[in-house]
């Protein structure tokens, strides 16, 4: 393909200047747009982010915990069931928001509410669309986990001061899920129930088999692989290390972190590519 040479003139000077800010800040403009869109249902967002931890911590941390008075073994000692389950619930809360925000919004952006095409008609690129969407997802995950953590404190579910790091590990878990799911949902051209499948055969089993309610080792060996591939298990274990000093070898802690970071990067880049390709019709 032959290249057209650039001829200097006032028109293209204006154009060259016009591209500068969007090239640098475009991802943030898209995040700003999405956050503005979330305002229309902010009451639901706030109600669920306060209601969810209350309900789950009561049911599992107080109710179910009564059946496990001896607690859960940890190294030489034990830890209360409430303290054991709380970091898992925290990570799950992040994953729930991530799943919600990375399914329909990505498919809709091309189809039912095709704002991605509108964004791309401006100076913004497909990569920036992906970046902005993920920034906006983080902007929902972080406050959700923060509120969750505060409720956990009220329940006395966080023995260690380091527990606050759980906000970061839970958010990273959510982001890993969001980017991987989005790299698939942004490919979907026709809704044939794929979203329900993701929830039913992806998110829900992950929630049940990721060492959430019981240690992963309690599962028969042939089911333990689910935990190993599940970002939720890795995120939950990190949360437990922070919240009550779960007895986890250093190499395994490193595996947890590297696995979550790797998923995030792979999912993020894959989503960028899919969106860029679909916009360039």
């Amino acid at each position: 393909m032959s290249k057209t040479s650039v001829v200097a003139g006032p028109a293209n000077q204006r154009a060259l200047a016009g591209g500068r800010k969007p090239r640098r800040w475009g991802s943030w403009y898209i995040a700003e747009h999405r956050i503005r869109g979330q305002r229309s249902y902010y009451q639901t967002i706030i109600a669920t982010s306060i209601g969810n931890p209350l309900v789950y911590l009561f049911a599992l941390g107080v109710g179910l915990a009564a059946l496990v008075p001896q607690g859960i073994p940890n190294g030489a000692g034990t830890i209360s069931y409430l303290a054991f389950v709380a970091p898992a619930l925290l990570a799950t809360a992040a994953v729930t928001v991530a799943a919600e925000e990375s399914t329909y919004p990505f498919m809709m952006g091309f189809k039912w509410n095709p704002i991605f095409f509108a964004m791309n008609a401006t100076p913004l690129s497909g990569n920036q669309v992906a970046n902005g969407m993920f920034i906006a997802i983080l902007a929902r995950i972080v406050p959700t986990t923060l509120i969750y953590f505060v409720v956990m404190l009220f329940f006395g579910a966080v023995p260690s001061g380091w527990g606050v790091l759980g906000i970061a590990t839970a958010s990273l878990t959510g982001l890993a899920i969001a980017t991987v799911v989005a790299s698939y949902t942004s490919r979907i051209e026709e809704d044939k129930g794929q979203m329900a499948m993701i929830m039913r055969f992806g998110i829900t089993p992950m929630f049940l088999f990721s060492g959430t309610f019981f240690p992963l080792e309690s599962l028969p060996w042939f089911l333990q692989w689910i935990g190993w591939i599940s970002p939720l298990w890795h995120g939950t274990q990190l949360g437990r290390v922070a919240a009550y000093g779960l007895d986890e070898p250093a190499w395994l802690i490193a595996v947890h972190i590297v696995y979550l970071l790797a998923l995030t990067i792979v999912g993020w880049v894959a989503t960028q590519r899919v969106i860029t390709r679909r916009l360039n019709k």
Partner: protein
Amino acid sequence: MITASALTKKYKDFAAVDGISFEVAPGESFGLLGPNGAGKSTTMRMVGAVSTRTSGTLSILGLDPDEHGPEIRSQLGVVPQADNLDQELRVRDNLIVYGRYFGIARSVIAKKADELLEFAQLTDRAKAKVDDLSGGMKRRLTIARALVNDPRILLLDEPTTGLDPQARHILWDRLFRLKEQGTTLVLTTHYMDEAEQLCDRLVVVDKGTIMAEGSPASLIRDHSSREVLEVRFGSDRNAIVAEQIRNAGDRVEVLPDRILVYSANGEAELTKMTDAGLEPITSLVRRSSLEDVFLRLTGRSLIE
């Protein structure tokens, strides 16, 4: 403003745009007229710097879209064929978020949004949901949105398709004003009246290639007669009568429902016909239009 040369877009083996060349001058109103599937929208997407060309050269504002997509798009206003307003946002917010995409400061865009709502006659709907707007209002909002960055070039892909006549005329009036202010307009349409109303110059496109180029008046002059006589004899008799009058006027075109006789003087042709004892059920003498040009060039009508 825009220079395209041998511009081509292929999808696998199919050439949606097959080597077209054109130029658009500053302040000009340029149209691509053609039926659905002619390659108009694909051309518009390439000019809009969102679709990569397969071959040929393309320069917009002196820049190559492959290299300077964001820079070019910063100077364009785009009105796509299907409205893609954000239905989750209210009317005014749609303008504001869109303005932000160009890096316009929040305080500036707030003022600009009010001006544009005024221009689009939507001031009283500022807080409405997009879904509650009529088709014409959505279209006007999409045009208002395309103007947030004071574009040098406004690209309109079938701006009035699907609108009722009144909504079309309001829209044409708004586009006229932009044209008067010196905005370069590039539009696609399959309505010849729209092309005649809005375009200084146009290309007739079919199957990805340019069939003819010129002003609406010169195209009609070069490819059609001054007047057209349309006669209907009923669907079963049209073909038989057409055989009898095939030498009438400059040229005769038989359509399924009517016969068109091209001539400098339509009334005279009708008189000749009735003198010969052929009484049409209905007859109409009209001025030649771009529809006739298209029929002449392709053997097909624009809206099939």
